[in-house]
């Protein structure tokens, strides 16, 4: 079943490559149908998935390179399944929001579908070599998407992004190769690697974990490694920003959760480091987001802050914290997706991202105003949004470990409230700017996209039970490792 999930966008990309490049409408519709089918298939997976079962399910394994011990093996559990849903949903939304792309349409949709396939591969791989292949495979389409369809500084941004990520993944690759070397049967299978890793001395484990942390931390991003993020987000075309912040960042944190499972002793030894990094990211990202005048840069920095919540949840190494981390990945995926979607639509209409240029848009674009205000409320983690549930769990988990220190999380929530309110105020109140008159409000397809994402945020906030149960079953197995 998972094979089909990966094949759908891949075959779709092949199909699009066969279409004539002039038929832009046809290509767009084909891409929509393909990503819609992938979304439907990923939801259909739920029927075959048993949520009461903690281990990975829907396993498919084919030997790939027997001499090297790598296998094409796919599976999902309660941690990766929500992310698979998020990836297929956001890929669909990104394609839906790509109406503004007018040139080289064929290449654009082809790359987007390839990107979707690679992202789904990262979340479903059960073999570290396969994981690494898919991990690197996401870079190719992204590089071209940013480099060819981005803003003014797109070349620099694309290069910068790829260099940063490659730099990180070098460390990851070395760590994976050393783990492979240590594994008993010389296999890249995640379970086999874990068995080998447990036998290593603790200092070796800590070193390997640090290397993995650098690799995943660049993607996440964690505080000193986030240099690529603001530039890339500002320059990338908005649908790509949706995917970047919605899913690509989650690949880092997802890898980190798998790394704690592989090297539990190291994770426990580095718990303090992780927590410190999380707290710094939280406050640092929040303060810098507050400082920005550029709408997209602001959302990008707020991503650093929100991913700090994920890192905090992972660092707690207990059940509540890990649930919070996975939940926050989903919540932030939905919220960041909505915000970048709306920011992109606004940029398409106004060709400015400076907050000072906007004013009284509520009279001109009431539907846009509604969704933006809702998205900012969700981003600030108000009760009734998915972010609230996630932050609550991270807070509870963090409090169990470190007590009062988690007040920093509340501080960052406060800061995020400050810039959310300021932005809403700037966008929608004040004197009307003459340049902003007569802007068209959201079209039907744009509204569908915004509605789907906002509905997801609010529905998960009001009725989080099933999702929390799904995550908790799998996360419980991880938390048991650390005696909590």
């Amino acid at each position, binding site marked *: 079943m998972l094979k089909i999930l990966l094949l759908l966008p891949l075959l779709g990309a092949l199909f699009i490559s066969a279409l004539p490049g002039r038929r832009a409408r046809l290509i767009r519709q084909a891409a929509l149908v393909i990503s819609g089918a992938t979304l439907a298939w990923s939801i259909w997976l739920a029927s075959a998935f048993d949520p009461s079962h903690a281990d990975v399910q829907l396993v498919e394994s084919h030997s790939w390179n027997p001499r090297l011990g790598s296998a094409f093996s796919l599976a999902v559990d309660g941690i990766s399944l929500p992310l698979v849903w998020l990836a297929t949903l956001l890929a669909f939304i990104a394609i839906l929001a790509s109406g503004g792309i007018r040139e080289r349409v064929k290449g654009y949709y082809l790359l987007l579908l390839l990107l979707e396939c690679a992202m789904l591969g990262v979340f479903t791989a059960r073999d570290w070599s396969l994981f690494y292949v898919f991990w690197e495979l996401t870079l190719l389409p992204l590089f071209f998407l940013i480099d060819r369809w981005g803003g003014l500084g797109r070349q*620099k941004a694309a290069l*910068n992004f790829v*260099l940063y990520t490659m730099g990180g993944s070098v460390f990851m690759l070395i760590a994976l190769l050393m783990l492979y070397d240590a594994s008993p049967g010389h296999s890249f299978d995640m379970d086999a690697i874990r068995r080998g890793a447990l036998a290593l001395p603790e200092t070796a484990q800590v070193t390997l974990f640090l290397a993995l942390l650098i690799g995943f931390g660049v993607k996440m991003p964690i505080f000193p490694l986030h240099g690529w993020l603001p530039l890339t987000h500002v320059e990338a075309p908005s649908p790509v920003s949706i995917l970047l912040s919605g899913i690509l960042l989650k690949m880092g944190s997802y890898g980190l959760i798998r790394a704690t499972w592989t090297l539990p002793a190291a994770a426990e030894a580095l718990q303090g480091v992780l927590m410190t990094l999380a707290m710094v990211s939280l406050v640092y990202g929040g303060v*810098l987001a*507050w400082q920005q005048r550029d709408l997209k840069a602001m959302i990008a920095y707020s991503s650093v802050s929100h991913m700090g919540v994920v890192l905090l949840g992972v660092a707690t190494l207990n059940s509540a914290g890990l649930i919070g981390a996975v939940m926050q990945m989903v919540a932030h995926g939905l919220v960041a997706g909505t915000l970048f979607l709306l920011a992109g639509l606004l940029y398409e209409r106004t060709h400015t991202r400076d907050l*000072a240029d906007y004013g009284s848009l509520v009279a001109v674009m009431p539907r846009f105003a509604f969704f933006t205000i809702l998205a900012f409320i969700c981003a600030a983690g108000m009760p009734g949004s998915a972010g609230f549930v996630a932050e609550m769990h991270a807070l509870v988990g963090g409090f169990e470990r470190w007590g009062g220190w988690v007040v920093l999380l509340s501080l960052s929530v406060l800061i995020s409230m400050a810039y959310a309110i300021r932005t809403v105020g700037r966008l929608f109140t004040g004197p009307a700017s003459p340049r902003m008159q007569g802007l068209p409000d959201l079209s039907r397809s744009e509204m569908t996209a915004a509605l789907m994402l906002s509905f997801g945020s609010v529905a998960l906030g009001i009725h989080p039970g099933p999702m929390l149960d799904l995550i908790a079953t799998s996360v419980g197995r991880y938390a048991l490792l650390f005696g909590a």
Partner: protein
Amino acid sequence: MLMPVPILPAEGVALAPALPLIAALLILGLRIAGRGVGESGERAIARITLGANIAVEGLLIVFLLQGLILGWPGHVDMGNWFASGDWRLPLSFTLDGMSLGIASVTTFIALAALKFSLTYMHREAGFARFFVGMNLFAGGILLVLLAGNAILLFTGWELMGLASWMLIGYAFERPTATLNAQRAFLTNRVGDAGLLLAMALSFLWLGGIDWPTLEAGAPRLPTLYASLIALGFVTAALAKSAQLPFTPWIARALEGPTPSSALFYGAVMVHAGVFLLARLGPLLAEAPGISFLIALLGALTACYGWLVGYVQSDVKSALLYATVSQVGLMFVAIGLGWFELAAWHAALHALWRAWQFLSAPSYMHMLDAPTRPAPEWLRKHGWLYTAALQRFWLEPLADRLLTLPSRALARDLRALDENVVCALVGMSEAQRVTELLSTREEVVKGRGVIGRMLAWSAHHLYRFERRLVLQGGDGSLAKGLNRLGIWLRFVESLLEQPRYLLVLIMATVVVIL
């Protein structure tokens, strides 16, 4: 012997409150989509409304017959709304003679009022808005009647409050209508506070808020605890049923269109309090003091309604005060422990009043003689007459006792806010507005002590970010790589020359040897 099987599973009762709410949402959707106006829109709204409510009535009658023949299902637990640790908010309904009986009568009245208003509201500007309110109300009252626990009841209670606020303020362009809507809503909030208090206390002392838990737990509670819980519920009931001291809001509520008054204040909503207290019979049995209070307030309200009703000069007010005094009698019955009598009284009275209210607009045509003046004895006692005419000054009294002190407190707090808090966290509202209007260039700006601290740290962190983290982004990373590339190309060009290659080979040989 063959066991008769119920036609509808008991869980299906959840549809009854859901259908009118869905109808309200549909109408809202129609209106937002730009439809729902004009003749065709009115027809669509009529179909949605009547369809939903007829379906509900059918459903309730099936449940009623099923219950009469096969026995009442009683408390139907349908799982949790949500749960955390050892407390939970259940999703449960109560299906017994009282709830189903009163619910089917209520829906019948609602249907009559809805059918009536289809003609009455024809070509009114707020046709869709009116029916959204009516459907919200129908869903809310069914939630109240069928709820198996206090939280569902509270949800319905609030929906009724919302619908009532919407419809009293129906003619929102008239200041009196909005003022009255606000007043009625605020008075009802006092009752809601009581309901919340009662729920919190029963969680604390009984560990749950569903009716069976309350029923089973009440006898084991000390009288004081039981009385406190009961007091919360009784406050809510008094406010909703417009008993003393909350009566004045209901006179203001008449501002809404006649069919809504008929449904809300004449027939159905005023009886919600009676129903709630009848449901809580076992709890009231443990709180004799509270029962006495209910009987006393009920009796007082009955007298009050009777006296004030005599001097009303318009038909709606007269009917309303008659209703209030009848409901007062029901409260007396409740206070004396005759719950079943109160429930029957409520159901019959609701039917009768609904008919009276709906025909109120045509009374002027039906009467051939002038209305009777106030009776002789009342006119003789001038002070009583004046008091009745002034409705015993209840509203000015409430203003003097509650509104004015609240305002004074608010003024003091505002002064504190202006002088201390604003200095700490930002400027005063007035200053900020003028600033917003005058300069729009300065987007990122911290106000007050805390804001300035944030701005200061943001400034320094941003400098750090630019210097250290973004340097790669400014191109120095690429520049460095370029320099490395040039240097490597230079090395390579050296190696291409044979003499250097020879030197390298010789050096390698030397090292190996």
